[in-house]
């Protein structure tokens, strides 16, 4: 199993470190969480940058319409006109994978930004308030966290259709409480600092303290949260599509592509492998960025669960 996942992402990570010449081994080991923060951050941001560039330039690179079907070239395998082959409807896999990146990046960027934005502001305010308001918000946050996020998403998407903004808002509702909890924890340690006490003593207004003193000082935690949440949101959205509740066919979406092409895995493996490699490299990029950021900023990121 380990071997097969390495194969699936092999294009991006070369290979395991064992038995390789020194220089290649250097590259391979720098991809692990055991390396210094700056190297992980560089590679992580590099992977994300490649994805962003490919997504922006997708219409010019792809060469084919991602939704155009052509039954004469169905399941061809790799050819000169279709570099990664075609799927069962004769759609070009490379074009679909590249265009799938635009959708994935757009939804992830919007959902992560809104969820982390709301969670950050709410976390700072509740931490500063530290009274009945804090207690009420945290009890609500706890209760929301207890409901399985996938169920909430499934219901919202079924009832309100799976448009872009519906998915973005549903993901926001699911992730904002978790961010609130984390940022509140970080903000509580900031509040005990002398400069906050000083600001209080000068008679600054509460909102000004929250936004001028507390918020800038939790930005390191927020940045790491951002990268980490983004990596989960990419996976969550593709999972929704895989289950048939996300993007509607024939939208070029990575999760949907895997679902459509996995039955043909033995005939035309690239149909499912191409979106998976794309998805995995993006998530590895986000994870490495989160690792790198938290190491350079001195935050222990691994002390978190898959969901917290």
């Amino acid at each position, binding site marked *: 199993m380990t071997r097969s996942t390495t194969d699936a992402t092999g294009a991006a990570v070369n290979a395991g470190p064992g038995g390789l010449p020194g220089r290649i081994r250097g590259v391979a080991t720098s991809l692990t969480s055991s390396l210094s923060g700056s190297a992980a951050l560089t590679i992580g941001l590099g992977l994300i940058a490649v994805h962003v560039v490919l997504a922006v330039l997708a219409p010019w690179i792809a060469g084919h319409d991602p939704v155009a079907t052509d039954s004469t070239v169905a399941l061809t395998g790799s050819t000169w006109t279709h570099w990664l082959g075609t799927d069962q409807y004769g759609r070009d896999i490379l074009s679909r994978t590249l265009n799938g990146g635009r959708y994935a990046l757009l939804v992830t960027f919007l959902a992560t930004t809104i969820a982390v934005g709301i969670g950050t502001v709410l976390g700072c305010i509740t931490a500063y308030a530290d009274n009945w308001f804090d207690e009420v918000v945290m009890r609500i946050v706890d209760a929301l966290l207890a409901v399985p996020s996938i169920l909430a998403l499934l219901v919202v998407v079924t*009832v309100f259709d799976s448009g872009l903004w519906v998915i973005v808002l549903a993901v926001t509702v699911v992730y904002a409480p978790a961010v609130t909890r984390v940022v509140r924890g970080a903000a509580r340690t900031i509040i005990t600092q002398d400069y906050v006490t000083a600001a209080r003593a000068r008679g600054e207004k509460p909102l000004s303290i929250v936004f001028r003193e507390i918020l800038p000082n939790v930005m390191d935690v927020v940045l790491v949260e951002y990268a980490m949440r983004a990596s989960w949101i990419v996976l969550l959205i593709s999972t929704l599509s895989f289950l048939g509740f996300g993007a509607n066919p024939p939208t070029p979406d990575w999760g949907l592509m895997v679902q459509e092409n996995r039955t043909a895995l033995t005939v035309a493996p690239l149909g499912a492998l191409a979106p998976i490699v794309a998805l995995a490299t993006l998530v590895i990029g986000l994870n490495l960025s989160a690792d790198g950021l938290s190491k350079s900023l001195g935050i222990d990121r691994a002390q978190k669960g898959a969901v917290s």
Partner: protein
Amino acid sequence: MNASIAPTVLLVLRRLATALLTVLLASLFVFFAVQALPGDVAQQLLGQDATPDAVAALRETLGLDQNVWLRYGNWLLGSATGDFGISLVSGEPVGPDLLVAFRNSMLIAVPAMVVGVALSLTLGVIAGVRRGRPSDHTISLVSLIVMSVPEFMVATILVLLFAIAIPVFPAVVLRGDSATVAELLPAVWLPAIVLTLAMAAYIVRTARSSTIDVMASEFVTTAELKGLTTRQVVWRHAVPSALLPTLNVVALNVAWLLGGVVVVENVFNYPGMGKLMLESVFNRDLPTIQAIAVVSALVYVVCNLAADLIALALDPRLRTRRKARS
């Protein structure tokens, strides 16, 4: 002596009350969220061409004409006694079906949990103790990759390898909802392996980093200086201290596990809670959705409560703090 016990008892009681409140609030959210969904249940059951009279009559039978708070109270009391109402699809009580699905899910989730935690703690501690060496790099790299590949792909690849290429396990469960435990056992392996891998990838990282923290602490240096072997230092000092932060992550992974089973059970056609969840959402079977949500919330809260209480029992420092949850 009483003076030292009383605050601890208070702390535990406070924590229990919070847990109860969380479950109640969650049930409230679930109930009202489902009520707020567009569409009338009675209309949906009878179809679009039902007469208004028939719809009104069914609303009365279902109790939909009552005050919403009254209905919430009735539903909550019923749920507390295992009566989750009647499924809109099968016309049967939700409770027994949910119980079977829950049991089936536990068949894959509990072994995955136990093996996953044991495996990841072992690997995490090894990686942490051998920080920077090839074994650490290998473990960290593999866990990063497993973490970054979605479960549906791991599941698909496993099916391809072990059910089609080398047919040792069945690819999907064919017996469906009526399968007994014995009939399910051959089908349990692949789903359980997928869950184990996905969960272990996260816990390895936590275990590794807390091992590194502990190995750098003063009491480990003291233990090394007084002449203990590496093995003794690791087993007596590093492992027990590294377990504590990991405990929390394990509890949080339970919530993930409830989502993880949805994908895994879908790929393997395994008749558990995840599959029931997908089916009930697809059919808009509101009583079943409500029941699954509340049971999941209960499981989540109980696991977190257990983790907190175990941490409290193991770590005396937590007992002296004024607020356990800050």
